[in-house]
Structures are given as C-alpha cells and as structure tokens.
C-alpha cells in the first residue's frame, strides 16, 4: 500500500507536519472528518415519511389551515386582560388583545404575547408525582383524601397558599374545600406586593381594596415610583388609558400631563413630561411635603398636625422645588388629577390617599367601589403562615402557583418552614422551587387549556375557555380540590351553575341561561349592569400617626439602599424560562437575557452593572 501516491497522501510526519499523539497528523484528521461529514450529509438528504391525519368527523366550523379565534382571559398575571387566541389546526399559536374587553381594550403586555410558550413548555409536569415519582390520579387522590380525612378529624391546621385568584368560582371552590376543616385558611401571596394600597384604603375608606385608577379621566398624573406602564398592578390597562389620555386631539381641551418622581429610571419615568430623581430615602418626605402644600392650598388643613407643620430635613433643594411646583400644578387640576405611589408602605399610601382626597379626586379619577381583585396579596398573612409552619402547627400545606421559596425575601426560611409541614401538596403546573418540596404534586392545566372565570374589577366577569385539549395528564386544580372535598362534578359544570346563580341573575337582557352562557364565552366577558354602590367617605383617623411615623423615619446616611424592581418582561422572575420574554431587550437598559444590577456612580460599588440570570436554575 505504500506506493508513492498514498505515501504523499498519508505520511504527513515524513513531510514534517505536526503529528497528534496517536500517530494521526492534523491534516489526516481533518481529511477523515471531511469525508465522514460529506458522507453523512449526503445520505441524510432523504425526505422523511410524513403522515397526514384528518379528523374522523370534522367539526363544521373548522377548516384545516384556517385559524379560528377564541376569546379568553390572560393567565399571565392577575390583571385579567382579555385575549383573543388564534388557534390553527387545533393548536393555539398566538394571542392578541380583545378590543371589546373593558380591562385592556385590545392591549397586551409582553407576558401575554409570549403566553403560548408556557403552554408548550417541556418543563411542565405531565402527570401527578408522589414522593417525586410518577403516579396516577387515582393513587394520588386516594393518598390525599385519606390524609386530609385524618387531619379533618383531628382538627389540624390546613393552609392553602396561592397567588392572587381573580376567579369568583375558583375562590368558591377553594373556600368549599377549606370549609371541611376546622382550622383552614387561604393565604394569598404576591412577591411584588401592593398590599399597602389595600391596607391604606381600609384605614381611609373602610374598604380593603385597590381602587380603580381612571387615568383616562385625569389631566395630570403624578406617580411616586409607580411603574404603572411597566409592571404595576394592571400595566396593560393603564397603558391603554394613558395613551388614550395622551392622544393629541383637536376636540380635547388638554392632553394628560405626567410627572414622575423616582429613583431608578423606569419605562414609566422615561415617558414622563417631567421626571424628578429622588432617592428612596427622600420619598417619604416628598409625599409629606406634597401633602402639606396641597392641603394648605386646597383648604384641607387640620387633618393632621404633622402634615400641616411638616418641614423636610433630608429632601434636596432641587426636589423641594420640584415638589412645590408639582403641588401648584395639582391644585390647578383639582378633581382631574391623580397621585399614585408604588411603595408598599401603608403610611405612605395613606398619605397619598389623603392627597387625593384633598384634591377631590375620589369619585372622579379614583373610584372606590369598583375595587378589584388584581394583585390581591396580603403580606401579614404570609408572615403568619411562615411562623405557623415554623412552630410545626400546620398539618397540611397546599400550594398553588405561588413560589415563595424562590421569590419571597427570605426564601430559605420559607423552605425550612415548609419542611416542617407533614403533608405538602403542590397544584402548580411546574416543579418549581416550592413545588419540588411537596410530597405530592398534582399539576394543574395551563390557562390556555382551562375553563375558568375572573372578576379582576368588580362587575367585570371575564371568561377563560380552553383553546386546546390538555396536552398532558394534568387536571384543573379546581377539579382536584373538588375531588378532595367529595364533589365529583367537573369544574365546567361548577362554573356553569355558579354563572347561572351569579352573573346571569344580574342581567335581564338574555332570558335563557344557555344563550347567556354562549354569548359570554363568545365575547370573553360579561359586564354586570348592576350599579356601583355609593362612594364611602374619607376618614382621617390615624393619618397623623402615619405621618408622624413617616416624618420620624431614621436617616439612611452612610448605608446602602437597594431598590428591587420587576423587569417588564420576566416580571418577578416567574417567566424566566420563556424564550421570547428573555429575548426582548429591556426598554430602558436594552439588555436581554437576564436582569441587570444598576447602581449609582457614587455608591462605591465597583465594576459594571452586572448581568444576573432572572431565576437560579
């Protein structure tokens, strides 16, 4: 074989070329690779055999290849926006906003646009797990019912932990399930909480609610750190109202003016007519100074001595001047202005509520009775739950979607506390940090596979209908809870009967329930014609104490202050495995894939802003 040609071809070492350890030269190696690749590439050209599988009996309204649109409700967050889901050949492929839905009026946020990725997510649980091993529903049900019966008999504590649940029917199912036990409670937890707004309105108006902010009716909006166009409470709805109010229109007297006080540059701040940077430590003083100036100019003094006699100590001169100017503008737009605050401090929210009251905004740009269930977390409940779990008194914990081990500020403490609960059941669709601690995982459907309803704003009943048959062996969490409370109906039946007793009875236009139901499902929403209750009056009780607490807050000089903020796309990190959401650059930092740590140049932290994945895996 060692004739001349081959010799030249093979024996590179003789030609002084570098030879690899086992005697094959680099050139020979590359030649070999080249041949193999070519051979593989050529033989893999064959067209694979494809199947066409038609229906056995094709529904008359369906045509292969032509998309149908179904109205539904977004399951991305608790804002309850209306969706139109594009379904082709039995698969949801895209969602758009429902223009006839009163919450979002056609708009959608990036989370909803990427919703279908959650449906086809390979990380979703595909069947129930018992002790981490695949199980069947019968087996899981048997175990759970047995254990729950024992707990019901002994009177042990049962806790159900979830994110905001906007569906009235789902809440009924949960309450019915919990009513079997002597000591049972539903804990609603939101990592990025707005509970302070609720608590503050409980103090000022006697109603624990997030009021409806009517940005479209305002001429001036002042936001103190609330990123209402990005992530705050119901960003899509606010964006819609905001853009409507900002539209330059010949018939309109004036367009909305927007002043933003904030410490980090948010998307909302970037859209403001005037943006004032204040440090988080200055926020309380800015609110109090604004309250003082507004109440003095609008004759609302006397509500609180602390506010009336307030003198800022830490506020910079620039900020003082900006607050004074802002107060003038607010007085000029009395009754058509809106002051909102993104802080989760009850005292701050109470002071903001007072400012709105002094400006006569309640009943005009802020409505109390149209309270909503959006972002319905209660922080103190969560703290109580952790304490109860720690002292070992909770016998059963059922977790639905909430993932406090990952997103609570003391996640490892929550994880330890959960470890002390004897029976832990997860209803979450994925095995997240919290669900992986559970003894039994009973995965629920994705929202695009489910029947559900939502009442994000009172009187607005939004419907969720499945747009695909469940892909995996999952079961609606409502149905799981119904099984465990001895109700063998499907959740669809429960939903219908609730609607017959609830929304159907509130209207008189449609006489037959079937017609009403079909119309509501078709439209995706039913707005109850029932008139709003009267506006509760403002009470200044406790305002002075709140103001005094704010005024007396210690100085943060010499310490570092961190502002934690949700990203517009992956929010608090729960969507961190959604590829589309990762690839959208942040509107401000322009960075994709992860979350940036931003810091002030003078803060002493060395190095560039860091890039950190949104969710540790």
């Amino acid at each position, binding site marked *: *074989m060692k004739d001349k040609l*081959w010799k030249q*071809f*093979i024996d590179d070492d003789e030609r002084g070329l570098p030879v690899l350890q086992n005697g*094959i030269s680099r050139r*020979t190696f590359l*030649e*070999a690779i080249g*041949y*193999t690749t*070519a*051979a593989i590439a*050529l*033989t893999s*050209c*064959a*067209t694979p*055999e*494809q*199947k*066409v*599988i*038609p*229906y*056995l*009996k*094709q529904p008359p309204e369906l*045509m*292969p*290849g*032509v998309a149908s649109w179904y109205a539904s409700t977004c399951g991305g967050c608790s804002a309850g926006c209306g969706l139109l889901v594009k379904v082709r050949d039995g698969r949801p492929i895209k969602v758009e906003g429902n223009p006839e839905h009163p919450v979002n009026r056609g708009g959608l946020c990036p989370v909803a646009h990427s919703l279908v990725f959650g449906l086809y997510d390979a990380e979703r649980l595909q069947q129930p797990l018992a002790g981490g091993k695949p199980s069947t529903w019968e087996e899981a049900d048997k175990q759970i019912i047995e254990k729950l019966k024992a707990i019901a008999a002994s009177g042990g504590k049962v806790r159900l932990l979830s994110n905001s649940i906007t569906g009235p029917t789902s809440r009924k199912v949960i309450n019915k399930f919990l009513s079997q036990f002597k000591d049972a409670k539903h804990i609603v937890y939101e990592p990025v909480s707005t509970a302070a707004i609720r608590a503050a309105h409980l103090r000022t108006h006697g109603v624990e609610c997030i009021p409806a902010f009517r940005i479209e009716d305002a001429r001036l909006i002042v936001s103190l750190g609330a990123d209402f166009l990005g992530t705050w409470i119901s960003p899509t709805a606010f964006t819609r109202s905001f853009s409507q109010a900002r539209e330059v229109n010949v018939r309109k007297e004036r367009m909305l003016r927007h002043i933003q006080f904030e410490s980090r540059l948010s998307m909302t701040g970037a859209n403001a007519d005037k943006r004032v940077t204040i440090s988080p430590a200055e926020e309380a003083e800015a609110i109090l100074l604004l309250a003082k100036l507004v109440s003095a100019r609008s004759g609302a003094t006397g509500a609180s001595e602390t506010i009336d006699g307030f003198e800022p100590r830490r506020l910079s001169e620039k900020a003082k001047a900006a607050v004074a100017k802002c107060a003038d503008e607010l007085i000029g737009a009395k009754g058509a202005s809106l002051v909102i605050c993104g802080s989760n401090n009850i005292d701050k929210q109470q002071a903001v509520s007072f400012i709105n009251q002094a400006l006569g905004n309640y009943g005009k740009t802020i409505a109390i009775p149209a309270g909503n269930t959006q972002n319905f977390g209660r922080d103190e409940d969560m703290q109580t739950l952790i304490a109860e779990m720690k002292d070992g008194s909770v016998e059963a914990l059922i977790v639905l979607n909430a993932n406090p081990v990952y997103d609570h500020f003391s996640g490892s403490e929550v994880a330890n506390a959960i470890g002390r609960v004897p029976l832990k059941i997860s209803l979450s669709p994925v095995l997240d940090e919290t669900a992986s601690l559970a003894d039994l995982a009973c995965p629920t459907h994705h929202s695009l596979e489910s029947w559900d309803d939502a009442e994000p704003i009172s009187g607005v009943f939004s419907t969720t209908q499945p747009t695909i048959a469940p892909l995996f062996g999952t079961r609606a969490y409502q149905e799981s809870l119904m099984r465990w409370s001895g109700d063998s109906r499907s959740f669809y039946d429960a939903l219908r009967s609730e609607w017959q007793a609830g929304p159907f009875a509130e209207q008189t236009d449609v006489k037959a329930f079937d017609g009403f139901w079909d119309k509501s499902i078709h439209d995706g929403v039913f707005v109850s014609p029932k008139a709003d209750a009267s506006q509760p009056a403002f009470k200044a009780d406790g305002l002075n104490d709140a103001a005094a607490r704010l005024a007396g807050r210690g100085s943060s000089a010499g310490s570092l202050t961190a502002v934690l903020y949700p990203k517009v796309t992956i929010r608090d990190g729960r969507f961190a495995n959604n590829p589309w959401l990762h690839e959208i650059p942040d509107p401000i930092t322009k960075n994709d894939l992860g979350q940036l740590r931003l810091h002030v140049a003078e803060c002493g932290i060395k190095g560039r802003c860091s890039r950190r994945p949104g969710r540790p895996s």
Partner: protein
Amino acid sequence: MSLTTLKILMILITIIGAFLVWQSRTFRIYGDQLGYEPIQPINFSHKLHAGDNQISCLFCHSSADKSKVAGVPPASTCMNCHSQVLPDSPEIQKITAAIAENRPIEWVKVNDLPDLVAFNHSRHVTSGISCQTCHGPVETMERLSQQNAFTMGDCVSCHRTHREVTLDEAGKPQIAREQTAQKLMASTDCSVCHH
C-alpha cells in the same frame, strides 16, 4: 483497521452515497420526490373516484379553494357515500373500523414541501390553476404518486411563465401564456413564498 483502509472505505461510502443521491428518488432535496408512491393505509384509487366516476376534486379536498391546505377528507366524508356504496368491501371496512374505534386514519403524505415555504392552495386554485398543473393526472392514478418535483426551480419557472390569465365563456380563468385579457402577476419576489 489501518488508517489507509479507513480512508478507502470512506471514499467508497462517499461514492456510493453520491450514486444513491443521483439515482434514487428517495434521496433528493426536500420536496423533490418525483415518482414517490407510498403504500397507503387504505387502498384508495383516485382513478376510480376522480377519473371513472368524475367526482370533483373539491368534493373531498374541500378546503383547497379556501385554505392554505387542500385538506385530506375526514373519514365521515367517505362514509357519506360508502354507507350505501360497497359498505362490505374490505377497504371500506377499514374506515368503518377506524370510526368505530375512534382511531384516525394515518395517510402517508405524497406531496410535501419543507416548512420554509408557505404554499397556499386557495391562492392557486382561485386563480384558475388546475389541480393537475402541479399534481399531474391524478384522475388516472390507481395509487397516488408525485408527478412534479416541488423544488424552488419548478415553482419559480411556473411563476415566471404563467403570469397571464384569460377567462373562458363560463367566466373561469384559463391559463394562457400569450393572451392578456386579465393579468394575474405571479410574483417571483422571495417573500411571496418565504414568509
């Protein structure tokens, strides 16, 4: 095995591979399977239905003029006639069984295009391109086979030449290369198919 033997083997494999690609109908680029004639789960004859019995193509492929796909008929469409016609034939029995067992029939796709091409049937059918232009004389085939190479070259050559359309007495568009009664410009823009 010595390196030399390995090399000779590889060269041989490449040559055989190249021969296969050049010769065989299966080893072509995606879409070009000229003459591909797979065995179907049911021995359906287009010659009998579309040829001898003159059943219109759209009777079964009912979405060809409305959708991007022509649509393979659901089993219920077969049974529209076959609940009366030859219900006892062994082939029809297969359909009856499929319906009874609620098990859809898995036909083998004969004409296929890669996913990077967005072909739309209704665009072509409503412009008066006959089914046979692309699918060949289907009404003469006992078992369906691919009659045209669905490669980009074939699409584009048709788009270049079949640009003008005249209407016949019945008002239906007829393809004619010279006459210019009504212009239906078949674009050769990339984004027409690749979008």
